[in-house]
């Protein structure tokens, strides 16, 4: 059990009558690279919000590194070692690229070491020349990089990436895949993606979410061979149910 880094039991989130996350049991081992896929509205982003304390679950528990984090506040969960990249980049538009990274570095590494980390990460995400630009002036793709950079800077144990390649070109998406594998050498990851090429490319273990519950789990090949998944998700024509 020691290598389980994240575990949810009976996790439920209701919005009015809608169960966005429905009795979800989800287990993640240390060092895993897990892809979560599922149709729009499957509850992927809601799951991330529950894991980071932005939403409190209606029922169920979340354990991270053996610690019950179900009722912790967002900043406490972040301090425990979970970092997130939002589906829509959530960065400080009026601040410079360097200041965005510095804020992340200061929280995780303190004031003294922050400067050096910012310089290193700026190089890693290829934004050295834009370090002084306000983030609001950057392209959508570059803003994604800034946010990925903020996650890299914090160096968390568990990294949550919600659609990291949205708005990126093919070349950028390939670079992101490389970066994801690179992050995976230090941290456990959950990546939500709609881009199947990307999912195949990073070759993780795949969880299919449907109506807030796990529909299937397995390698990409197993998932592609799964008729039910094909029906509801991979865009094949629904067959008549028996």
């Amino acid at each position, binding site marked *: 059990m020691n290598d389980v880094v994240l575990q949810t039991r009976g996790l439920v989130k209701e919005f009015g009558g809608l169960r966005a996350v429905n009795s979800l049991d989800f287990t993640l081992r240390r060092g895993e690279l897990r892809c979560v896929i599922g149709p729009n509205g499957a509850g992927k982003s809601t799951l991330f919000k529950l894991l980071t304390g*932005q939403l409190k679950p209606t029922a169920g528990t979340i354990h991270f590194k053996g610690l019950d984090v179900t009722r912790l506040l967002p900043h406490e969960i*972040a301090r425990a070692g979970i970092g997130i990249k939002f589906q829509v980049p959530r960065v400080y538009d009026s*601040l410079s690229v*360097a*200041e965005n990274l*510095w*804020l992340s570095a*200061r929280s995780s590494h303190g004031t003294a070491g922050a400067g050096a980390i910012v310089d290193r990460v700026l190089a890693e995400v290829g934004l050295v020349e834009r370090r*002084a630009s306000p983030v609001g002036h950057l392209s959508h793709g570059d803003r994604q990089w800034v946010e990925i950079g903020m996650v890299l800077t914090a160096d968390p144990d568990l990294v949550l990436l919600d659609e990291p390649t949205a708005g990126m070109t093919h070349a950028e998406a390939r670079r992101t895949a490389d970066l994801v594998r690179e992050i995976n050498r230090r941290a456990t990851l959950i990546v939500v993606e709609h881009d199947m090429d990307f999912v195949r490319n990073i070759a993780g273990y795949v969880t299919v979410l449907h109506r807030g519950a796990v529909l299937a789990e397995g390698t990409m090949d197993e998932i592609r061979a799964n008729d039910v998944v094909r029906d509801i998700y991979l865009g094949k024509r629904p067959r008549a149910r028996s």
Partner: protein
Amino acid sequence: MTAWALWAVAVVVVAALPAVLSLFQIVQLTVFMIYSLLALSLDLIWGFGGILSFGQAAFFGVGGYFYGIVGINSGSTTLALTAGVAGAAGLAALLGYFTFYGRVGAMYFAVITLTVTLILHQVMGTTADPRYAVGQARLGGYNGMTNIPSLALEAPGRAPLTLDPVQLFYVVGGLLLLVLALTRALVRSSFGRVLGAIREDELRTELLGYDPRWRKLVTFAISGGIAGLAGGLFAGWGNFMNPQVFSMFQSALVVIWVMVGGRGTLYGAVVGTLVVQSLTNYLGTASVTYTTVALGAVLVVIVLLFPRGLVPAIGGAVRRVSGRRPPAPEFAR
């Protein structure tokens, strides 16, 4: 570089003013500088913390009454001023604890701070009866608290030296420059940078691992303390406090000073106060029939012409003329 030059100019100007102005003008300018401190306290919490407070007048009043009570009873105005700052900071910390830790929304926060101010107005108004006294200090209801001692220089083993108007002007001017320098250092410190991040996106900042609650609380307490300092100086300047300091008008006036000068600039708080108060005085003496209406009209025009305030407008004009780049984006707002 330019910042240092500006500071040097400010010090020289403050030092030289008593030589060129009349005594009456010096006394007037002293109270304007006291009001500037009050405006500065709002700019810290509103301009940098992003939290609009209508409670600065309350902290100002509490600072003044504490100064009066302690000053009358102890005879020491240093102690009195310290009590004014501590009392106001304490009230702000208490209010901030319940609102920030209770996750009260920005709108409710503004309303709550205004309500507290108006409650103090009511309560202090009912203290006319002589039995409402703290030791020797009678609160005095709407008639106010009188016989508050003037600010004095105190040194151990010496008789206290009551400041004359010019000396008081220097002390207040020195304190204003000191508080300005300290708040400037605060907003540029690593604490201040995180505060700016909270203002821009609170949830994002929490998810980076920062607790916004105590940071807002500390900022608000400092802001309350500065307003309390202003209130104490005000009581020592006029030897008098009354519940009008807790009025709706006073509360709104502080917001107007900061808006006119430019929110989030610190210097703007001072400039806005000096401009608005000079204008008020001028309109009052120029026998304009409807002073308040005329003042209101002028303020509306200023806010419409310079929506970000006078200081950002002047700064922009200077940069256009000199062709300099805008300030480093680290501090862009």
